[in-house]
């Protein structure tokens, strides 16, 4: 929903990189482009830049409306804009589409320069670390040495954490929202079920579905349904749908939709399968599964975070069972052991994991106040 004080139409931009990028897997991408949007003005001293990292199914279109489509409102329009918690009257905000995505940056749907065909399944697996490397190249291109803040929710929060470890001098503040320092076995299990749904769809064709003019729509749709269940809280679902029936006459005694929740999930799944790419979905869920900075430091998260020099703002939501507050507390505990500057808030919000996208007054007040502090530090208050 478009909120008031929205930025209005925003044009997407592209940055082409011709040098090869070596990935965590050891493979390299010869050249690639990143799609991005920017909001606000980069001041002459270039200290007021904020990077917004996106989660699983989002993109560089963070705020405002797309120039080509006034109905297409940015995924965090309630957070970013003039007078919003991340105030574009003060900050120069960059939204970047991650490498391997299907929304404009080079990914499985892009044309492989050597074969002239879409990469499809030939597109390498990219990790959170690879995304951050690519984002840093974009920052160089934009002339940003150091971000006043790097912020993200969920998978976006992982990128903020990785930024703080990988480029400690380039991040003044890291805001890590509804995130986790690593996926649990249960999280990975959900991802695996989603991947199996896609991989077992007869239309998948080993990832070369584009060549067959096919789309593994059923698989993608089921994958999204599974994901969606984990984004909402039990209470939220009960409140929104309960056991309400689609057909008020009663049960259908068949396998068509009986309950409203079934209808809702099918709708979400089908909608998603029309705009999201299956190869991208497979890869992004793997990037989630693989992220584990502690694993690089003998399983010690505090040790992994030692290089970080940023101040941290960690936020979790009480009803988030996908990445519950316990995961954020682990991060907080590790950061405290490292004597990091730190704010941690556990917002009592009913919306589960998706709460990070919602306009909750306590949540937004906190982010707003935190950015007041950031603004004061970089002199753009």
């Amino acid at each position, binding site marked *: 929903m478009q909120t008031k004080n929205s930025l209005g139409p925003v044009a997407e931009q592209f940055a082409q990189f011709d040098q090869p990028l070596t990935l965590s897997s050891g493979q390299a991408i010869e050249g690639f482009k990143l799609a991005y949007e920017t909001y606000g003005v980069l001041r002459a001293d270039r200290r007021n830049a904020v990077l917004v990292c996106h989660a699983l199914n989002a993109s560089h279109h963070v705020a405002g409306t797309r120039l080509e489509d006034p109905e297409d409102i940015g995924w965090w329009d309630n957070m970013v804009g003039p007078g919003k918690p991340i105030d574009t009257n003060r900050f120069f905000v960059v939204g970047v589409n991650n490498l391997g995505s299907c929304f404009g940056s080079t990914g499985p749907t892009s044309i492989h320069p050597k074969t002239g065909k879409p990469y499809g399944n030939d597109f390498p697996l990219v990790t959170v670390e690879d995304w951050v490397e690519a984002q840093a190249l974009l920052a160089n291109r934009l002339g940003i040495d150091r971000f006043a803040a790097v912020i993200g929710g969920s998978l976006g929060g992982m990128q903020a954490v990785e930024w703080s470890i990988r480029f400690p001098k380039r991040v003044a503040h890291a805001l890590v929202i509804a995130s986790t320092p690593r996926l649990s076995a249960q999280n990975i299990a959900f991802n695996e079920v989603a991947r199996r749904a896609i991989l077992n769809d007869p239309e998948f064709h080993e990832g070369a579905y584009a060549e067959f003019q096919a789309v593994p729509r059923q698989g993608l749709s089921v994958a999204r349904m599974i994901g969606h269940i984990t984004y909402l809280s039990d209470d939220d679902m009960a409140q929104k749908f309960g056991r309400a029936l689609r057909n008020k006459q009663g049960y259908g005694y068949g396998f068509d939709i009986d309950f409203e929740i079934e209808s809702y999930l099918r709708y979400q799944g089908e909608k998603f399968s029309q705009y999201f790419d299956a190869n991208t979905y497979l890869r992004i869920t793997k990037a989630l599964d693989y992220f584990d900075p502690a694993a690089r430091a003998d399983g010690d998260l505090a040790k992994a975070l030692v290089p970080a020099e940023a101040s941290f703002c960690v936020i979790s939501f009480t009803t988030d069972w996908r990445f519950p507050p316990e995961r954020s507390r682990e991060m907080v*505990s590790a950061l405290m052991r490292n004597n990091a500057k730190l704010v941690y808030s556990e917002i009592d919000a009913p919306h589960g994991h998706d709460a990070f996208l919602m306009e909750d007054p306590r949540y937004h007040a906190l982010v707003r106040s935190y950015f007041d502090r950031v603004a004061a530090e970089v002199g753009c208050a």
Partner: protein
Amino acid sequence: MNRPNHSDLELRPDLERIARWIRPKARVLDLGCGDGALLAWLQSEKECLAYGAEINQDQVLACVQRGVNVIQADIDTSLSLFSGNRFDVVILSQALQATHRTEAVLREISELGQEVIVSIPNFGHWSHLVSLLMGRMPVNRRLPYEWYNTPNLHLATVSDFEALLGRLGLTIIEHQYLVESDNGELKSIASLPALRATLALYRFQKQ
């Protein structure tokens, strides 16, 4: 040292007394840190590395606005968040009486810090005894709640508290018995603290 004039960092008198007990550059944990006034003071005046824990969302926000380190946590249930950390000083200012697991909290915080500072309202104050003699639970400026809506679950007299410290093997390093006047000023007293003190501050450590 050239120190800026921190008129906005005027501390509440009881917090000021706690602050005086803390060495410069100490690593401090303030449990139930409220709006972060003490943290801000310790940060700027004593260059402490100070973290606060606070459960109330509005107070957490106030801490963010002050620019202090704050962690939203419930002292009763989430002290494990701080384990693995070692602090020079752990402070629990006028919050112990509102904890559910008071004894366990005392034991746990004495593990977290080299030293612990606790302040408690003295329930044995003579005015409370007068109230009780008149047949009513005391309600006053310092304990402004009725018996049915008070967050204060575990009120104690100074003697009660000192007995518990002894039982838990915690040694008092220093203490102050204080009388709070109506204008908020604090005065130390030496005689008849059990009856006259409204507030007691303790600095103690594990034996």
